[in-house]
């Protein structure tokens, strides 16, 4: 099936333009490539256009009864459709031609009409209309894609965990400032049982919808594997990794820190799958790096057995989990926030509530970055341990 013919409206109160067009384009009319519609004044033209919303090119005389060509042009300019008009006027009628061009005419022809010029002008007009149409379609498609991406981000954000209420033994606060594009970071926290809380932070390679999907799947798998028969963080990661590797042809991977804090004694059992090591902010302002475990990122190495590690939190100690959106945040001078700035800032926040630590660090990053564009998600999870003094 061919395309429907491209339609052109010819407006003239005399017969000669119509005859000329029918004669000149007879072959293309017969081939079903072009179709001409005719009107005898501006008013009729508007009626035809009303009936045929798929006409985007108009060839119009200026002097006509009822409604002249210049008035028609103004009406077209006010209409919603993007219709291109070619004006036909007497040779030397520069005043009207100028007026027509100023009212948005695409081009003009002078009478007596030159055959070749007529054909070339219509051809040019059609090309222009086509380019315009395809630009509009592209724009519409882009708008649709952007809406879908925004929706994906909303879904992803809505999956972040609900707040865990502060208690006598701990307070937890997470902050995520998503970059413009969907994707990136993940955090989570949830109770393994009454006395143990899981803390998760992760960063997926790449951005966009594939990355967002991978993140969402990882989060669901981790929750599922650690709610049923939980043994150790490493065991969970080993299982999650296996499942992620099963179908990951595009080699997306995720760096992830998974810690489980025992609120009874302050022990943190953890396994770190290639993620930036968190910080332990001690009550006495010491900032320690949570030692790395020799592991690899999740999703690319089936059969890998993840290792556990363990540190001890003392009353008043705070854990700070973050993604490189914090340490690699750049200002306009291309300087990064860096780990040393992070550690320095953390040291001044010993003993503060989780909420205050999270807010102040993110504020410090934003102040450092200024108005430079944010290219990556900025995420942190803060947990303060403060057991019952009794």
């Amino acid at each position, binding site marked *: 099936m061919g395309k429907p013919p491209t339609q052109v409206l010819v407006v003239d109160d005399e017969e000669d333009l119509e005859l000329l067009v029918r004669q000149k384009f007879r072959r293309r009319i017969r081939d079903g490539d072009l179709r001409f519609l005719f009107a005898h004044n501006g008013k009729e033209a508007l009626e035809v256009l009303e009936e045929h919303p798929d006409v985007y090119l108009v060839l119009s005389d200026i002097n006509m009864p009822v409604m002249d060509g210049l008035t028609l042009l103004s009406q077209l300019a006010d209409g919603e459709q993007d219709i291109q008009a070619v004006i036909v006027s007497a040779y030397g009628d520069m005043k009207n031609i100028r007026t027509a061009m100023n009212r948005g005419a695409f081009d003009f022809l002078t009478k007596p009409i030159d055959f070749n010029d007529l054909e070339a002008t219509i051809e040019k007009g059609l090309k222009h209309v086509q380019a315009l149409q395809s630009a509009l379609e592209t724009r519409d498609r882009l708008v649709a894609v952007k809406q879908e991406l925004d929706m994906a981000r909303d879904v992803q954000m809505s999956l972040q965990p609900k707040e865990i209420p502060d208690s006598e033994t701990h307070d937890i606060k997470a902050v995520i400032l998503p970059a413009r594009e969907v994707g990136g970071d993940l955090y989570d926290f949830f109770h393994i049982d009454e006395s143990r809380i899981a803390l998760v932070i992760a*960063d*997926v*390679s*790449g*951005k966009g919808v594939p990355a967002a999907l991978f993140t969402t799947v990882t989060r669901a798998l981790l929750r599922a594997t650690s709610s049923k028969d939980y043994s150790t963080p490493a065991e969970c990661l080993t299982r999650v990794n296996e499942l992620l590797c099963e179908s990951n042809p595009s*080699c*997306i*991977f995720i*760096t992830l820190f998974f810690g489980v804090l025992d609120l009874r004694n302050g022990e943190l059992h953890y396994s770190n*799958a*290639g*993620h*930036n*090591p968190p910080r332990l902010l001690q009550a006495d302002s010491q900032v320690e790096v949570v030692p*790395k475990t*020799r*592991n*690899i*990122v999740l999703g*690319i*190495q089936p059969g890998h057995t993840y290792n556990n590690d363990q540190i001890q939190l003392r009353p008043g100690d705070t854990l700070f989990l973050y993604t490189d959106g914090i340490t690699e945040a750049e200002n306009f001078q291309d300087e990064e926030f860096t780990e040393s700035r992070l550690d320095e800032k953390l040291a001044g926040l010993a003993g503060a509530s989780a909420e205050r630590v999270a807010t102040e660090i993110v504020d410090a990053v934003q102040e450092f970055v200024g108005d430079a*564009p944010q*290219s990556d998600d900025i995420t942190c999870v803060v947990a303060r341990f403060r057991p019952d003094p009794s």
Partner: protein
Amino acid sequence: MEEKAKLSVEAEQGDKATILIVTGRVDGSSVGILESAVQEQINAGNKTLVFDFQDLSYISSAGLRALLIAARLTQKEGGKALFCALADHIAEIFEISGFNEILDIRATRADALGAV
């Protein structure tokens, strides 16, 4: 925003391997340059690639993914990919992510070529 040429990849044909000299930053916006350079070599039938990272200043997770794909592609063709001359801060990225366990990393270009 100003546009900086932040990444270049230059290919040198050796006897047993193609050396790809990677200069600058590999991140989400420049990783395409690295990916097409690798694809170009694979298409040309060069299946043993040595990545010289002496002048690599930064690599993001998107960049690491491209290296992983390069390793898989060369392997599939019966060749391999080696990575050499990592600056300390790049080596640290490889170590934290565990990529030093899954990619073949050598200290110098000579070491890498010796292992081809």
